[in-house]
């Protein structure tokens, strides 16, 4: 089962590099991601509790939860990508901001890297060995760098370079953290050495050396925190998200950040089991609040709508860390929030891609009247904004409420007050941008004229089905989760939170 999960996308990714026919390659992309989703659902519902390589790879509740998010988002992304890729083509194109000509990276490389990306993220989700987890997280960096550089021009190159260097260095520090963790097990080496596998570490957590363990967590938090986008280590994130194609942004925000979060959580679980939960929780709360504050500052008055979404991701990553740091109900809320945020942000980025294609600008000032130009995308854009800022009845509202309840339960009223204040600031900041973009009169906008997207007589243009169905499905899922969380999912979230020490 695990091998199938890993190998289906990996092998199809390798095949995609060499397929000549565009049609075949796109079919392969959808088939492979659909097969991956089917496997995840089977694993989830039948709970075969499978493991491979002597327990180094295993599917536990947390793994299935994060794998499920990744897979769902990838399926939506793959469907969107087919239309997107045929629209993009391989000819020379004019840059929307500076007007020079550029060519896209070959589509075969794009599809291949996309599938390998899915495979490496699966490895992160199922890896139980500290070292394998590291290998997986670093591999995700390497497979996504070419995706960010899909539009071959200087801005995307700058973004890809920053991403590559900052994340590689950060993840290098996480490797140091792994060595610290190994040093914490030094006591065992004389008798029978302890394998650095998470279940075993949790079991013997009390016998680990606390000093090395603390140092190890710190390094892992900083290292994987860079990848997750926790402020002040987030500097690569807005650049990469704004320059990458919108499908890739959706996957980076919705899936990749979560995977890095899972890596931190596994380590957190060890610390909680060792009785050092207070140490790691305080750090998580601190990083969480810093991320939320910084994101709020940059969202207000943001001029680029994809960067606005990127900073919103920094904010939500902060909320995730905060929830786990608070523990109790907030920890469970944080797991639910990971699901909600990914789905919502995926829908928003795909909608942003549609807006970008029609208006040919990322500037928030040159987009007006999305609702009349692109009726479905416009509604999605507004609904997505309401969902992501925690307006009922969407799922995000429920998970953010649980985190607030956790803060109040823990008696940390200052944290709760700051949390509410920052959510409020982000709501107002995003509302100003999104509402102005959605309504108003679209006549006379430079980008629209070029694409011929709108005229006063005929109104809006027809939107392609591929561009609206995937974000609509994601949006519907968020709405559904706000109204009713199925017991299967509820159990899974509870189990994941308990296993990762998020309840602690």
């Amino acid at each position, binding site marked *: 089962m695990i091998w199938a999960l890993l190998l289906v996308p990996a092998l199809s990714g390798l095949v995609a590099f060499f397929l000549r026919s565009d049609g075949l390659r796109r079919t392969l992309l959808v088939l492979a991601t659909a097969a991956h989703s089917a496997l995840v659902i089977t694993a989830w519902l039948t709970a075969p509790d499978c493991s491979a390589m002597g327990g180094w790879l295993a599917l536990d509740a947390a793994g299935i939860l994060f794998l499920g998010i990744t897979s769902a988002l990838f399926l939506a992304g793959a469907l969107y990508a087919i239309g997107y890729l045929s629209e993009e083509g391989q000819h020379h194109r004019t840059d929307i901001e500076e007007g020079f000509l550029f060519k896209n990276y070959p589509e075969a490389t794009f599809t291949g890297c996309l599938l390998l990306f899915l495979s490496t993220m699966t490895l992160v989700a199922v890896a139980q060995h500290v070292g394998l987890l590291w290998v997986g997280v670093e591999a995700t960096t390497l497979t996504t760098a070419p995706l960010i550089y899909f539009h071959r021009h200087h801005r995307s190159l700058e973004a890809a370079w920053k991403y590559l260097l900052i994340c590689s260095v950060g993840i290098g520090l996480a490797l140091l953290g792994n060595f610290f963790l190994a040093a914490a097990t030094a006591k065992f080496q004389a008798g029978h050495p302890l394998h650095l596998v998470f279940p075993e570490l949790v079991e013997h957590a009390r016998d680990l050396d606390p000093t090395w363990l603390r140092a190890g967590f710190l390094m892992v938090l900083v290292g994987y925190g860079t990848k997750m986008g926790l402020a002040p280590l987030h500097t690569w994130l807005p*650049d990469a998200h704004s320059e990458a194609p919108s499908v890739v942004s959706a996957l980076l925000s919705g899936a990749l950040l979560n995977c890095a979060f899972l890596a931190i959580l596994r380590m957190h679980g060890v610390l909680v089991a060792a009785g050092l939960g207070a140490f790691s929780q305080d750090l998580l709360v601190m990083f969480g609040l810093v991320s939320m504050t910084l994101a709020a500052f940059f969202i207000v008055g943001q001029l680029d709508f994809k960067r606005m979404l990127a900073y919103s991701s920094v904010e939500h990553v902060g909320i995730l860390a905060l929830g786990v740091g608070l523990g109790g109900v907030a920890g469970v809320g944080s797991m639910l929030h990971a699901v909600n945020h990914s789905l919502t942000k995926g829908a928003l980025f795909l909608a942003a891609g549609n807006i970008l294609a029609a208006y040919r600008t990322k500037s928030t000032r040159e987009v007006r009247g999305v609702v009349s130009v692109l009726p479905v995308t416009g509604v999605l854009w507004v609904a997505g904004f309401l969902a992501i800022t925690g307006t009922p009845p969407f799922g995000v509202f429920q998970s953010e409420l649980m985190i607030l309840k956790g803060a109040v339960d823990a008696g940390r009223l200052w944290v709760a007050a700051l949390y509410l204040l920052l959510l409020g600031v982000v709501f107002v900041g995003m509302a100003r941008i999104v509402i102005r973009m959605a309504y108003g009169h679209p006549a006379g906008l430079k980008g629209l004229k070029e694409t011929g997207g709108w005229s006063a007589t005929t109104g809006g243009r027809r939107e392609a089905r591929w561009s609206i169905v995937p974000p609509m499905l994601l949006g519907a899922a968020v709405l559904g989760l706000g109204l009713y969380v199925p017991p299967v999912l509820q159990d899974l979230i509870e189990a994941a939170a308990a296993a990762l020490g998020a309840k602690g």
Partner: protein
Amino acid sequence: MQAWLDTLVVLLILTNLRLVGSSRLFACVRTVAVQGLLLGLLPVLVQWNTLTWRPALLAAGSTFLKAGVFPWLLRRAVRDVGLRREVDPVVGYSTSLLITMGLLGVTLYLGQRLPPAGLFESQLMTPVAIFTILVGLFLIVARRTAVMQVLGYLAMENGIYAFGMALAVEEPVLVELGILLDVFMGVFVMGIAIFNISREFDHIDTDRLSVLKD
């Protein structure tokens, strides 16, 4: 054996100093290659009496990559770019050397106070490993050219590897191979990126990659 080990560790310090003090890119690539070779010799010396084929093969593999493949890749990148030296670094070379000496002093001082861990015989090993990591990080922030930053990344990776050795962390073969593969792919992808940067901009000064900001 102890004398040999200490010699190696001192040589490691010297490679770091040369890396920080030299402006010539080819010389720096060579220095990192020497560093890789020294690190490859270390495990062999540490476990001289109990050496088995497994760590020996791994050491040989990592030496081959770090002293052979990476320098080859980077040398090609430098040749393609047609740039021979880093003319105007963020921090000047003499200042860099002074800072590095300061770092060395601090790490040696702190090294005496660290809790003892692992089975390594040389007292210098842990502080020098941390020193190498810091030198790598320093190079990444204090140099402009992309090649020097990749060299900094490699020095940092070397330092982490040395640290693992100092703590006698025994990673399973598979994980070790995975780490090597990742570092290899990392350098490979960075090499491609450098090539693209030089083609796109006619230079590889990363501080001029500054269009994207808020």
